[in-house]
């Protein structure tokens, strides 16, 4: 049962991280195609939803939210926030390889620290509380 939980946590964490990074990437690519959008009129926002990159980005970010909630149904918050921060690493790599963005030495250092930090937390057992989640001590 315990190894099952570890495998399941790894699988759903991967879905959360990838949907977040690729969703943000697709949304930013789509919004660059749509152009500047700072207005109180609903029309331009609705038009943005005609852009396929925007649709893909929004769908992926909805998936991200649902799978993150599902992950929190058994995994600790202190586990999830740190391990899923690897989406920053994937975002930086997507920017470098698909948008030809420069990655400075300082950014590489940040990427390395995030990776090491996520590995530290990834080595801990994901679930240390019961179904009350601590807030139901009464």
């Amino acid at each position, binding site marked *: 049962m315990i190894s099952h939980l570890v495998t399941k946590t790894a699988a759903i964490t991967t879905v959360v991280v990838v949907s977040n990074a690729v969703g943000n990437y697709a949304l930013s690519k789509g919004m660059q195609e749509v152009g500047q959008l700072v207005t109180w009129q609903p029309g331009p926002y609705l038009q943005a939803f005609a852009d396929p990159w925007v649709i893909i980005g929004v769908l992926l970010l909805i998936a991200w939210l649902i799978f993150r*909630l599902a992950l929190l149904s058994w995994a600790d*918050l202190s586990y999830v926030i740190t391990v899923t*921060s690897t989406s920053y690493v994937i975002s930086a790599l997507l920017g470098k390889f698909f948008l030809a963005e420069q990655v400075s030495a*300082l950014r590489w250092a940040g990427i390395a620290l995030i990776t090491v930090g996520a590995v530290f937390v990834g080595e801990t057992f994901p679930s240390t509380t019961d179904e009350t*989640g*601590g807030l139901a*001590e009464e």
Partner: protein
Amino acid sequence: MMRWILVALIVVPGTVGDLLTTAGMKRHGEVNDFSLSGLARLLWQLARNPYIIIGIVAMAISFFALMDLLSIAKLSFAVPATASSYLLETALAKYLLKEEVGWKRWAGASLVAIGVMLISI
């Protein structure tokens, strides 16, 4: 001054939102059905879970405050100010949610917070 009010509006509702959604999901119980119909049923149940509803409203406030902050301040101001929430949430997860936070989780959260600051410079 305005930018610090926005930082508070990002960090506090964001942290409250994460704590409430975690507590709500633990009460919901472990999710095992990841089929499309299973996820649709999950959404239907969560839409009536007050912890989740209030938690998501709090996270939305945090998100829009971040958008506002990014429109008046640089990313290199906004991200380091919010990176501290990794440590704040880890501490609150330990004391309010009673999670076991050992040295590996503290070290991991600290490294990630510093890393997130570095990538925004």
